[in-house]
């Protein structure tokens, strides 16, 4: 009975939304043209003639993410940081247990193929992240792609592979924290520089503005660098990749290790 009521409610919601959309609730569908704000962003992102408002990046999406709406993205990064941190906190004592597993991994054929594919994945990830200001992509996407590589390695070669190469939990955690600190510093770098040399600067300032002469470099040799965008992408790439790798390492621990951690003390939680 409860199911029937619930389902009929959903049907009513769908019908109501459909009616509203059909009678023009979302405006003219499909949109004839993009919004004015989007036109402004597209016009300004790499317009050297209006260089006091440009982001020095031909890629409008990255310019919006890390320059025009950079503060939003910083807080989104904080949410990302918190979610990973919460997941790690639930398994905090596993990280201190040294795991002595001698897993042979999968067969030789799978191992060789994975070795080749891993290189390709890491190359694509680095290219996506470091060219984020020139081509579609950026730190978030690059990091998400790169985190597939350790996941594959964990499954195919076993956890022993990471332990032998001294890629430990604490190292990954340090890498993540350092890159997030650098990301934060990058956003206030020009304020600090301006404070030191006695010129005004802004939080999340990328290129020189009409009221502030401070600027990140716009070009590296003759290629657009996008100023701070390149560094934001780089640090975000490291933070996302190491954060996901940490959670994957924990989730792929041995079953009895996980069980021991989860059962808790005698009195439970």
């Amino acid at each position: 009975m409860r199911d029937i009521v619930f389902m009929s409610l959903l049907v009513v919601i769908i019908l109501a939304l459909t009616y509203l959309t059909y009678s023009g609730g979302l405006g003219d569908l499909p949109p004839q043209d993009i919004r004015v704000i989007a036109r402004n962003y597209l016009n300004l992102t790499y317009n050297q003639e209006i260089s006091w408002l440009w982001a020095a990046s031909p890629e409008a999406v990255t310019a919006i993410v890390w320059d025009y709406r950079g503060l939003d993205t910083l807080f989104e990064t904080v949410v990302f940081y918190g979610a990973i941190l919460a997941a790690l906190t639930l398994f905090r004592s596993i990280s201190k247990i040294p795991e002595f597993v001698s897993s042979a991994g999968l067969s030789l054929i799978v191992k060789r193929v994975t070795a080749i594919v891993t290189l390709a994945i890491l190359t694509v990830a680095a290219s996506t992240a470091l060219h984020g200001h020139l081509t579609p992509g950026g730190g978030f996407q690059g990091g998400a792609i790169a985190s597939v590589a350790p996941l594959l390695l964990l499954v195919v070669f076993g956890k022993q592979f990471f332990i032998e190469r001294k890629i430990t939990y604490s190292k990954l955690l340090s890498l993540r924290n350092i890159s997030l600190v650098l990301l934060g510093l990058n956003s206030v770098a020009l304020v600090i520089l301006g404070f030191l040399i006695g010129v005004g600067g802004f939080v999340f300032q990328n290129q020189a503005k009409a009221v502030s002469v401070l600027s990140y470099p716009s070009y590296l040799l003759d290629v657009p660098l996008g100023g701070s965008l390149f560094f934001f992408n780089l640090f975000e790439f490291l933070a996302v990749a190491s954060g996901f790798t940490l959670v994957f390492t924990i989730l792929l621990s041995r079953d009895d290790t996980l069980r021991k951690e989860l059962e808790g003390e005698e009195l439970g939680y």
Partner: protein
Amino acid sequence: MDIELIKFMFMLTVISLYFNVAISLYGVVAKANLVKKLIALTIFQDTVNMFTILVGYKLWRPGLILQPPVLTDLSPTSETIKEFVERSVDPLPQAFVLTAIVIGLAVTLFLTTIVLHVSYHFKTVNVDEISKSKRVYIHEEAV
């Protein structure tokens, strides 16, 4: 292609997304299994992301070549930029969605660890059984 057909297909896509939202909400609320709830939640996430991308869509007209919001000319003149603004799709929804996807992934990982905890602790992922076993436990304590 006919403009009317494009409009019809667009409306059909929007309505099918509404269906997707409804079905995934049904999964989140009505299914007792926590893993099924989690799967429904990811479907909901993806549907909303898809909807956001769809907002940045631009109607194709004969003679108009659409392109992603990336300027390919690295030393643009004002004409090139004008043409770029005319041809490009809306970059703003894409910027929102790209962060939403990664944060969605992080939140999904967090929820997965919680479900793992619950499954080890209660030996089940069914919320009805979990609440029942909790009630028995509290009753035993009271007695």
